[in-house]
């Protein structure tokens, strides 16, 4: 029996190292099950114009315009959404001005999205400040076309008025969109982004701090975990997807 317990403990330690219990559970093959995508943070390899965190240049299909690269084709309005576009989410969100917003309305431009809640005592202000640093690091032409979107976990307390006050406090200009939504829609978005969150007894949310760059098609192009880190890779990712927008504009 001791051996079995050791096996269980070993599997647990594997998890502690941030690896998939399933993929890494070689000592217990009976329960080993292979998730079809092992990486917790990287988007699928076939996502359009993916920029890996370690990459220093844009993916070839974004840097070089080729007619044969479908993911770099211009995005005509009304064209079907790509298979990996987050804009397939049909949820209706409300912004801090009380306007109804669908994520698909963000299509056609680089978008940087993060999840937060307004009464957050520590991480969220730092996360927003990271986003501001990221924005400042962008060339002005890219900065002008990039939207920054903050989506609240707190479906109860973060009313439009609270979000408006949050905007005023920083302040956040018109490039920023602050959204609130229904609990299931928040959960869906968090699931797709890979953001974990949990409300604690003090009604604070424990959550993953994650900055996600979406390309103009709404596909995840880059993710930056953590706080107060180097955001230069994320900035490069935004630049890479922005190039695609300008190429598309010229083509039109």
């Amino acid at each position, binding site marked *: 029996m001791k051996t079995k317990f050791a096996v269980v403990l070993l599997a647990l330690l594997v998890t502690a190292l941030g690896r998939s219990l399933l993929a890494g559970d070689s000592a217990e093959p009976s329960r080993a099950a292979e998730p079809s995508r092992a990486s917790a943070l990287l988007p699928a390899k076939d996502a359009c114009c993916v920029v890996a965190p370690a990459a220093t240049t844009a993916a070839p299909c974004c840097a070089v315009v080729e007619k044969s690269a479908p993911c770099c084709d211009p995005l005509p309005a009304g064209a079907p959404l790509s298979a990996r576009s987050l804009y397939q989410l049909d949820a209706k969100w409300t912004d801090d001005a009380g306007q109804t917003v669908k994520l698909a309305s963000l299509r056609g431009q680089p978008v940087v999205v993060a999840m937060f809640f307004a009464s957050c005592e520590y991480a969220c202000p730092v996360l927003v400040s990271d986003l501001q640093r990221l924005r400042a690091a962008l060339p002005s032409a890219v900065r002008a076309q990039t939207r920054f979107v903050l989506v609240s976990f707190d479906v109860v307390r973060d009313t439009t008025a609270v979000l408006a006050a949050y905007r005023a406090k920083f302040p956040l200009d018109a490039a920023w969109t602050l959204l609130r939504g229904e609990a299931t829609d928040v959960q869906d978005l968090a699931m797709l982004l890979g953001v*974990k969150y949990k409300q604690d007894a*003090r009604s604070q949310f424990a959550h993953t701090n994650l900055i996600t760059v979406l390309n103009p098609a709404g596909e995840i192009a880059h993710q930056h975990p953590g706080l107060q880190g180097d955001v230069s890779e994320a900035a490069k990712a935004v630049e890479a997807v922005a190039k695609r927008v300008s190429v598309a504009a010229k083509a039109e």
Partner: protein
Amino acid sequence: MPSTLPRLVAALALTLAVSAGPVRAEDTLPPAPAGMVVIPAGNYAPLIRTKDEPERVPVAAYYLDERPVTNAEFLAFVRANPKWQRSRVSPLFADRGYLADWAGDTELGPRVPAASPVVRVSWFAARAYAAWAGKRLPMTAEWERAAAAGFTTANGGTEPGFPAYALVWFSKPTPDTLPAVGLGRPNFYGARDLLSLVWEWVDDFNTAMVSGESRGDTGLERTLFCGAGAAGARDLTNYPAFMRAGLRSSLRASYVVPNLGFRCAQSLPL
């Protein structure tokens, strides 16, 4: 003191009622819908908690499917909802491998018995099925509360032989063809197969392993399931619960896994 006596009588009556034995859920709650069992209100002690979190979390009474959802039931769902068929499902909502062992979009085939639990389904697909069935996925606290019961008592942890039984599943390889659902011995609440057939999705699986202190850092590695976290765990002997927590923390909502299925839950009518 005219009111003292009735109070004493009431207190005595209450004491007698309590000491008469546990009140079974079915005696006090509306009967469960067909194929579901009542999990009475109670407490769930999270496996790992932060210093801010209470030791016990109240869980309201709810209905839980007696057994996992079968291939036949999921087949009916995908027939009624073609966008969840294998060739049509969005890769955003289910990874490659979704229902991979089925013979076709609406055909189970010889390797997939109709009465066996459906597996290789993503969280998104499981949740869509539950909504279609007029139900929902159970929350972690709800599922764990149901699974904490033994065969004859509400607390399997103290039931002779039950903790050892709960480990048996981990010692056996997953068979090529999964057995039919409903063959497991019912637990105290009447639920079957919770600990003996497949892993099961829960609605809030993505809350697993988030530490309250993750606000202070990335929340992805340092504060999750490290040694300090395990040392703060409440019940170090509940290995199956640790395994489930570990599994949940490793999942993403689009993942499909050959031995991960689900069952549905329902809230009690208000």
